[in-house]
């Protein structure tokens, strides 16, 4: 038994310290949970010879980890799936500004931090999914309209405390001010078909099954269902339509997946190279095809399913802006009962 224990202990040490060994490497703290991301790291290593070490976790906790590790933190790059988390990390002083002509030339200004602390690498739009047999696209117009009593008992949306809804409500606050945003949330809650449950995919399935008529969801969930090879998911996709709200005014709310270089990065050059690689046509093509996000590189076309939705107008509000209103948004959720 004791021999086994000492073998295991040795193994643990080797595992623990293996990360500190090789020379050309970059350490990524990844808040994205897409298993397909591994291919991106392989692609980067192939292109540059730099080894990529990864820890995945929830962005909030990764931020805590970087803070706790202090100046010794091995983290070089932090990646998250929501602008709010990037904004939070920036406020906590975790990132360093990066000035890269490569990044600035590719990414539109609304999708990166004005000071260069972080940049978007892919986007997702929050759209309205509707039941084709019960709703005509002509009846739909804006996010604001979903709070109108005519939708009473018909609106489906996930929990208000979820980051996607906090960001959307943050954008409402930035556009209309806190009082109007709260009135909107109150109206929306009054129209719920059921208390919020499950994720975005569940809302889409509930629309198809007739539990409600309209749902607020992110584009890649819709695209994934439409592209599914499973008969039951195909059946769901057949029953629903996709509507991009606010096309006649400010445009549809768009959130980002993004990355920033950590202030204490030991491999800063490699970190910048990695971020630039994520914006390259090769990596953008891969992101577009596997996680079904919109590429931020204008030279790369979205996945065919997303492209079929047609071009749409994007709300130009900077992601840092709506991200900053998240704490206020959460208090609105509490006061209006958007659980």
């Amino acid at each position, binding site marked *: 038994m004791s021999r086994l224990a000492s073998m295991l202990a040795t193994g643990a040490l080797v595992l623990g310290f293996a990360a500190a060994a090789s020379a050309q490497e970059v350490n990524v703290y990844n808040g994205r949970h897409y298993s397909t991301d591994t291919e991106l790291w392989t692609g980067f290593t192939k292109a540059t010879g730099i080894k990529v070490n990864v820890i995945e976790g929830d962005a909030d906790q990764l931020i805590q980890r970087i803070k706790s590790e202090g100046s010794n933190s091995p983290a070089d790059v932090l990646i998250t799936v929501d602008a709010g988390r990037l904004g939070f990390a920036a406020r906590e002083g975790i990132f360093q500004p990066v000035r890269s002509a490569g990044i600035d030339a590719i990414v539109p200004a609304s999708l990166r931090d004005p000071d260069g602390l972080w940049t978007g690498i892919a986007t997702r739009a929050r759209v309205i999914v509707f039941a084709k047999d019960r709703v005509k696209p002509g009846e739909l117009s804006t996010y604001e309209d979903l709070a109108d009593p005519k939708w009473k008992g018909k609106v489906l949306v996930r929990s208000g405390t979820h980051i996607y809804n906090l960001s959307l409500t943050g954008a409402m606050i930035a556009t209309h001010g806190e009082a109007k945003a709260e009135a909107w949330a109150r109206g929306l809650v009054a129209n719920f078909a059921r208390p919020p*449950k499950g994720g975005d995919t569940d809302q889409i399935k509930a629309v198809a099954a007739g539990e409600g008529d309209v749902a607020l969801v992110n584009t890649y969930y819709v695209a994934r269902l439409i592209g599914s090879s499973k008969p039951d998911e195909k059946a769901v996709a057949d029953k629903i339509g996709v509507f991009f709200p606010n096309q006649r005014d400010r445009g549809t709310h768009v959130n980002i997946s993004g990355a920033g270089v950590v202030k204490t990065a030991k491999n800063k050059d490699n970190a910048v190279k990695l971020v630039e690689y994520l914006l390259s046509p090769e990596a953008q093509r891969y992101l577009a095809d596997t996680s079904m996000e919109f590429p931020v590189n204008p030279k790369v076309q979205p996945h065919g399913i997303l492209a079929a939705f047609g071009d749409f107008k994007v709300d130009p509000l900077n992601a840092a802006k709506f991200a900053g209103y998240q704490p206020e948004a959460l*208090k609105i959720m509490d006061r209006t009962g958007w659980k």
Partner: protein
Amino acid sequence: MSIPAAPRFSFAPRRGALAQGVALVIALLAATPLLALVLRSFTPTDGLWAHLASTVLPEYVANSLLLALCVGLVAGVLGTATGWTIAMYRFPGRDLLAVLLLLPLAMPAYILAFTYTDWLQFAGPVQTWLRGLMGWRRGDYWFPDIRSLGGAIFVLGVVLYPYTYLLARAAFAEQSASAIEASRMLGRGPCRTFFSVALPLARPAIAAGMTLAVMEALADFGAVTYFGVPTFTSGIFRTWFALANPAVAAQLSMALLATVLAAVLLERFSRGDARRHVTVDRGRRAAAIRLKGAGALLAMLCCALPVLAGFVVPALVLVDLVFETDLPLTLAQSVGFAGNSALLALLSGLLVVAVALFASHAVRQRAGVLPVVATRIAMLGYATPGAVVAVGILIAIGGFDAGVDGLSRALFGVGTGLVLGGTLVAILYGHLVRFFAVAQGALDAGYARIGPGLDAAARTLGRTAFGTLRDVHLPLLRGSLLTAGILVFADVMKELPLTMILRPFNFETLAVAAYQRATTERLDEAALPALLIVLVGLVPVWLLARQLGRQVRG
């Protein structure tokens, strides 16, 4: 509580001091992450308490209380009923059911939550089938909503009852024939014998099992979040991250733990010193009663239903999902992840059991109230959400690493970098804090069976406290040690947040792989890693079943 006769031994004061010291160190180790969190959180509270109290807090408190109480009850009743049936009766399938009843131990609650949702929701197969069969549409019929407080109670109840079953069954099986037979002779029927003799004798074991269920229910984050039930624990998270206020989050955590500590101590001291030592009387157990006909059927149902609900149905849903999808993991990945999971579970099992043994031993020295309270404090980690423990450990270990690094720079001019951060040591520490209670519960139950006379005899024969532990307790505790280790192993296999946030680079486990897919709403792809967690978890459960069989026969 200190024993007045103690001064008779010349080494008594030192012995007491040692026991108190050991207990104190363990309690400190366990409390450090939480204390670190509290000390770190100096953010102003910005009237957040008023906001929370006037909006969501009442619902959090109500939901958490209801959840904890009902899960405790469900787990207690299921565990006691099945434990009693298996221990006292013989019926067809009894030996098999005795093993099967342990299977839900291998099933993580969050996986149960998503399999049942997939199966029972409006758009799922059961309701779709019903609608097709009856020609119903939405609103034509009532169907229980699995994504509700009731659903959460059900899911947590059916995975947490095995703790009570395990401890209650052993307690019932050990009750000497004389007590039960005396009751029968005095004209009490099986029902009154159960309630007036067997149940009070087994109360410490049942209470220990229920305490574990209640604590785990309070700490649960995965299942309640998936069901959209706002509880105190989910409140801690949103306050912390979305409201970006760690101070209030830490205060909420402390409030939760204070409540749990009060409840645990209340239970412990309400039993007072009324210890019920049952002599180890191997030859004479109450004869099992053979059941036939309706009675046998009832017994089979009583033991089969929890297994169906807590294991068979969700396992079948998982298998079905696996076959529906292209395999999301290669064979090499599966083996690698499973290996990492098992390695962690094994190391944590050894560590946690060793520490719990020292703690139990310290309590046994009867060196006053301190060791009792200290171990109860150490048990609170089980009621603390894994992510809260994890961030506490990040802060504590971060402080330690920075201190060592600074010292080394000052003395030698060279920094050490991170010493513990990002190593398995951090995760093991986390598991110690989180799962100490599980091992401690099992060992306490084992120690209760060793009469104090044996200690006295050993001491008279010149054994020191440590010598008694080594030569007398350890051989007698072998079964309990194994049980404790296996329970910790099973818990670590299912554990997610601690491992995820504290792990080294490129270190994947099955639970992380399952979560990664479930959280991006690819439930079908999460099914394979989930099923592997269950399969690897079955190994210790099988060992446990063998161990129990040996104990009962022995």
